[in-house]
């Protein structure tokens, strides 16, 4: 698969290395050149630039990409770039990592695929403390927030 990853933080870099190691064509975008230091032993493409700029996305090969995932520190940046990928470049599979659970829920309802790592992490930790068996990811994603 041809995969574009926006954000070369911890999550982005680990994903990039993993996907690339199993033979996928991966390119990673970050606006901080320093972030690419996390990509030792990576033979994909590194693109320096703003992920909300269509030209930068094109440089990363978004035209004809099979998947796009946004894992920057900004929820809004992730949501926006995923919509650019989906609406402008017709990337078939997209996913935005979102910290704010309410925002994630709102966008899920609007048909933008999101993964809220906050609710998943909180749910797993709470279950661990209560000696409960860990459940399915969707179980944590669908938990009521209040």
């Amino acid at each position: 698969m041809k995969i574009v990853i926006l954000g070369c933080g911890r999550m982005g870099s680990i994903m990039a290395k993993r996907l690339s190691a199993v033979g996928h064509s991966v390119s990673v975008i970050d606006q901080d050149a320093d972030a690419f230091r996390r990509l030792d032993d990576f033979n994909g493409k590194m693109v320096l630039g703003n992920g909300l700029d269509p030209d930068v996305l094109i440089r990363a090969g978004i035209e004809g990409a099979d998947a796009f995932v946004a894992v920057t520190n900004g929820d809004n940046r992730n949501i926006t770039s995923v919509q650019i990928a989906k609406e402008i470049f017709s990337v078939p599979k997209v996913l935005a990592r979102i910290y704010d659970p309410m925002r994630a829920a709102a966008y899920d309802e609007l048909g933008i695929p999101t993964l809220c790592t906050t609710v998943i992490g909180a749910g797993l930790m709470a279950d661990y403390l209560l000696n409960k068996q860990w459940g399915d990811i969707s179980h944590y994603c669908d938990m009521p927030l209040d």
Partner: protein
Amino acid sequence: MYVIIAGGGKVGQYLTKALLAEGHEVLLIEQDRREIDRLTEDLGEVVMRGDGSEMRTMKDAGMERADVVVAVTGDDGDNLVISQLAKRKFDVPRVIARVNNPKNEELFHRLGVDQTVVSTKIIFNLIEQQIETDQVIPIAALKRGNIEIVEIDLSSDSKVKGITVGMLDLPEDTLIISVIRGDHAIIPHADTMLKSDDSVIAMVKANQEVQLRQVFASNNQK
């Protein structure tokens, strides 16, 4: 009207001020704690601290009763999310967003944010008009059909000086409406002779303005 403005930069601040002066109810949302005091001092108790793209802040701001929401932060991602949530989650009747990167304008429109302001583009257009046209001044733009009415000042070395309107090699879809000479507006005919210091008022399709400009350019310009 109840207007909520997200983003307390220069645009947000002056917009708030102008709307308050017109007697509207305004709430300005700004995230940066350091900016709050400065804004409150200038605008009064209409400034709220918070993340304007967060559902909770939007609820606290009373977004469901807002008539207009304006997203004018310096970040396109923030502006898009604020606009989308205002429109789709709070059913705000009118949402206006600032687009910082002109290339994102199409995306905003496609995603249902119909009213956008691209300041970079507006300024760019102004500069371009100054530099390139020199003597072509847009008077009005008719939205439907993309037609503009422009005024063209003929310089003393204009290529068309001394020839008649009928001889002009005009681009398609152009109509010469009037020739202003001194204090007189002439309704031109094919045999109306053009003189230096005339102003020509023309109607033109927006995409042919450049060609029109070239027809009237000075001899020493290409």
